[in-house]
């Protein structure tokens, strides 16, 4: 089976204020289908840079990254993915349903599929009643949920979540956990970066820990973390020089 994410020798550097910044150094990572994969690291480790390269927001200096075997430089590589960021950034002048329709059209889905999936996702996220309300009137939690629905409009094989629980209340966190569990049950792959180690420990099959742009640990949580030790403790030991 083709790996949803295949990163080989990825290096990203760019000019910073005090010279060249090495954001990522020779990162090699493969995410198998159906895995819930946690991408961890302290601030400045290179997590966001990796996601940005995978999503086409910026180019790698060297190395390759592929999504489902397709080079990430091709926009078609993003056909099977869904992405949700920490911030519920969306168009305030659209209604929830219009946002989902727009997202579906950008994936070139047929109208009937968009209609069906939108209704289903609005129900799943508890936004059916607010579907025809402008997003400007939504609360932060509702905006987070409509962004989640938008990320799922194409029923993605790979869901990429950037700090999905950051800034969420306990109910919001529960929703995200439930979402990840549902995707896993459906055999889909979830790749997420997070600082919330307890969430990661609960949800992930495998983790990768990044520090200063380098991969310092990778594997199943049960193998990496010694018995009787928490992921948090292991993480702190791993990233502390």
């Amino acid at each position, binding site marked *: 089976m083709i790996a949803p994410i295949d990163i080989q020798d990825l290096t990203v550097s760019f000019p910073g204020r005090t010279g060249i910044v090495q954001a990522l150094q020779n990162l090699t990572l493969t995410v198998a289908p159906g895995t819930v994969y946690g991408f961890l690291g302290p601030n400045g480790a290179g997590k966001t*840079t990796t996601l940005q390269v995978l999503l086409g*927001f910026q180019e790698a200096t060297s190395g390759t990254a592929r999504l489902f075997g397709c080079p990430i430089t091709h926009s078609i590589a993003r056909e099977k993915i869904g*992405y949700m960021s920490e911030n519920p*950034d*969306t168009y305030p002048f659209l209604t929830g349903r219009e946002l989902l329709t727009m997202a579906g059209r950008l994936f070139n889905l047929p109208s009937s599929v968009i209609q069906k999936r939108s209704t289903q996702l609005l129900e799943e996220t508890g936004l059916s009643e607010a579907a025809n309300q402008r997003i400007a009137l939504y609360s932060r939690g509702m905006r987070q949920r409509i962004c989640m629905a938008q990320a799922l409009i194409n029923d993605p094989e790979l869901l990429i979540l950037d700090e999905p629980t950051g800034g969420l209340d306990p109910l919001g966190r529960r929703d995200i956990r439930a979402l990840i569990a549902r995707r896993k049950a459906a055999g889909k792959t979830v790749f997420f970066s997070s600082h919330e180690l307890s969430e990661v420990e609960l949800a992930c099959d495998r983790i990768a820990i990044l520090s200063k742009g380098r991969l310092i640990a990778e594997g199943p949580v049960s193998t990496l973390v010694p018995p009787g030790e928490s992921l948090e403790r292991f993480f702190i030991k791993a990233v502390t020089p």
Partner: protein
Amino acid sequence: MNQILTLAGVVWLEMIRRKDLYVLLILMTTLLAGLLSFDIFGLAGVAGYVKDMGLLSVWLLAWILAINTSVRQLPQEEQRGTLFPLLAKPVSRLTLILGKWLGAWSITGFALACLYLTLCLGVSLKGGRFDVMTLLQAVVLHAAALGLVCALGITLSTRMNRDAATVTTYVVTAAAFILLPRIPSMLVGVGGMMNTALYTLYYLFPHFELFDLRRRLVHDWGCAPWSTVTGILVYAVLLTMALLSLAWLGYRKRRFSRGDIL
């Protein structure tokens, strides 16, 4: 094409819900009402005066709308953070640019049609009328000029921040409209470097004066030759394509980061 139309549709929805168009139409109606209430030159000259000033207002309002709409599209996506979920979809950056340009141009074109319609009503209230074919040519050429303005606005917004791009687009389009037609007369008696510089400016900047049929409309000179109109439209299409290509070149490898880059 579906993606381009979807992105253009979002521009339409935003413009309609921001109520910019209504403000524009209210402004035009107020200006026309003011013009209609004047009777400066006696009855005979009034319709021509309304035509002249009304057409000037249409050009000014459409110009302002085209620049403000086009220039904000890409920087606003980035500022609002909506660019990221957009680029995470199978949408190429060229598609994004084309969708934004089409949206900005088509909504400006729609506003233009409404403005001309309002003007026609105003002129008819004073007993005047426009020659239909000349009016059609004027509207088509005006819309083509606005496509060019939108392309310029979008191109500059890929290289500058929104405010800088807005000011530069205003300055470049105004300078091109006002100064370029005067360059041939300025070339008389000028030699050397100055001559080369003026020639370069003359051929580098878009010639908006070619799209302006206001005098034909005001003085009822009749239609322009269709071959000339076609030639100007081809010029507009080529220049718009060139500008959008430049926009793409400036945008295709641009690094977008949200928050902390690391």
